[in-house]
């Protein structure tokens, strides 16, 4: 399989913002590698931006056989129409069987335009991907707030899907890996109908990346009490999470919300205080390594979904836990 374009079995969109590769890209490479190997074909990545030679090589270290690089000042920032035009041209050239894009805001803005342009099917927000016996992509996604899962197949090519961040395994970086970077010709479009006037850093809590989450639920009696959660989260170097009712009540921002309509998280430790565990909430945190739950109600579904649970009052446990952790920290100092 030299540089034959026709062997591009799986294409993934390598997402970047400010020249930094979004980590969902490495998860796409992880899953894409598995799928491409099973198909006996290449795994390719498409990267658009400006000054991204190093980043293109990184994609190879993370598993890509070939990287199609569109490097041009006009592609520095995300421009839906420009990105779409270049990618559609590439897809028509290399004809991948499967085309995966991260289900981030950028990915979910871009993917439907590409799919509509190619008149192909697109499945949103997949949490798993598989191949059937004929090598067709089986796309698995939650439906109806995560209460049910649906398997979806696409009868057109490429079979396109956006993939939820933090559910697939990241590939492992191997700087000894070899692959090709193909510099693509960029056809500059003067006016795409959109112009970025300003760019501001959105300095919000990034709960998807958190290693430790201290989450609050309906068991919390007043918004002031969230200060305890913040205290514990700060002690552990973690982030405060929340179930939906507190967000709806305006006690805490949506960036803290864990669940189907909020964020999917995958921390090493997820601590749930006063969260009953609706399917919608469980959907967002079920990939956590260790789940510790504290709830007064012994019938709360959350308890069955946890590794360790305490039947008790969060107003007794939480301050005590803060106290104990302070003790440990002081002894160490």
């Amino acid at each position, binding site marked *: 399989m030299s540089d034959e374009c026709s062997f591009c079995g799986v294409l993934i969109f390598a997402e970047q913002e400010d020249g930094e590769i979004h980590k969902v890209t490495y998860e796409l490479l992880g899953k894409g590698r598995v799928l491409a190997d099973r198909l006996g074909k290449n795994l390719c990545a498409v990267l658009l931006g400006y000054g991204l030679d190093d980043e293109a090589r990184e994609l190879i270290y993370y598993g890509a056989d070939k990287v199609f690089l569109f490097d041009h000042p006009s592609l520095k920032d995300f421009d839906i129409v420009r990105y779409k035009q270049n990618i559609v041209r590439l897809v028509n050239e290399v004809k991948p069987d499967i085309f995966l894009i991260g289900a981030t805001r950028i990915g979910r803005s871009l993917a439907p335009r590409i799919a509509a342009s190619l008149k192909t099917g697109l499945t949103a927000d997949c949490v798993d991907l598989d191949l059937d016996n004929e090598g067709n992509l089986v796309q698995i996604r939650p*439906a109806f707030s995560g209460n049910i899962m649906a398997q979806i197949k696409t009868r057109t090519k490429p079979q396109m899907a956006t993939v939820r961040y933090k559910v697939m395994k990241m590939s492992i970086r191997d700087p000894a890996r070899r692959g090709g970077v193909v510099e693509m010709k960029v056809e500059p479009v003067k006016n795409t109908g959109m112009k970025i006037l300003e760019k501001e850093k959105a300095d919000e809590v990034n709960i998807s990346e958190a290693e430790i989450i201290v989450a609050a639920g309906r068991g919390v009696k007043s918004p002031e009490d969230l200060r305890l959660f913040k205290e514990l989260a700060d002690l552990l170097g973690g982030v405060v999470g929340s179930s939906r009712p507190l967000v709806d009540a305006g006690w805490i921002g949506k960036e803290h919300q864990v669940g189907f309509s909020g964020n999917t998280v995958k921390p090493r430790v997820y601590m749930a205080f006063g969260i009953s565990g609706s399917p919608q909430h469980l959907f967002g945190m079920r990939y956590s390594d260790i789940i510790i739950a504290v709830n007064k109600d012994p019938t709360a579904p959350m308890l069955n979904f946890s590794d360790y649970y305490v039947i008790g009052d969060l107003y007794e446990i939480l301050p005590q836990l803060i106290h104990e952790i302070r003790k440990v920290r002081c002894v160490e100092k």
Partner: protein
Amino acid sequence: MNILVLIKQVPEIEKVRFDYEKGRLDRSSAGAIINPFDLNALEAAVQIKEKTGGSVTAISMGPMQAVDALRDALARGADKAILLSDERFAGADTLATAYTLASAIRKLGAFDLIICGEKTIDGDTGQVGPEVAELLGIPHVAYVEEIRQICSDKIVVGARMERNKYIIELRLPGLITVTKDLNNPRLPTLRDKLRAMRAEITVWSYKDLNEEDALQYFGLNGSPTRVIRVYTPAAEKRKSQVLSGTAPEVAQKIVQILRESGVLG
């Protein structure tokens, strides 16, 4: 300004029950409403109209019952409502839905701005808006949380992506999809509701769209994706080990678990 708002009637997802034995939704357990995100789209359209004049047209594809959602849209400030309803539209995935909506929009003729909610609460794809924009060949911005300025030929909006919030000037005609942060949709008054009850709602079928030999683009025929299986996700097996004792004892046990897992100490 001639504004189109694309809306969908959805089940009340928070109330709808799931029949775990049969593995499907019990749709009779909940009513039908306008997709909540579409209310923000409608509110944005009405606010723009109040400033610039013009009209707001709500368009929906769905079964005949969806006239209720369109009446609600009229009560909330839309001037006209069009329902695209035909058995041949049924079973549509996002591409076929976008094709049908785009086809109706072309028939309507000139427009300045199309506004959609960022996604629906039942399908949760957020794909139809951008797909309509592509099929109509107009630019779009998704996840708009702020409208700064609107003129006859452009709109300036704020949209947050992953790392940054972008202030974008979008040429019109164009399409935006909006988030819940954009505005607080107003409630219709009783008078508005009564007026909407009597209002005329245009219903277009496949024939009305004047598409020659295009049946393969509509409904199930025009849908490249197929749901092949639906199931209840298996409950994750966790060890569910109970930690008991007084509050200090329990806290010590949790500290021990944190230490063993390597996140503490």
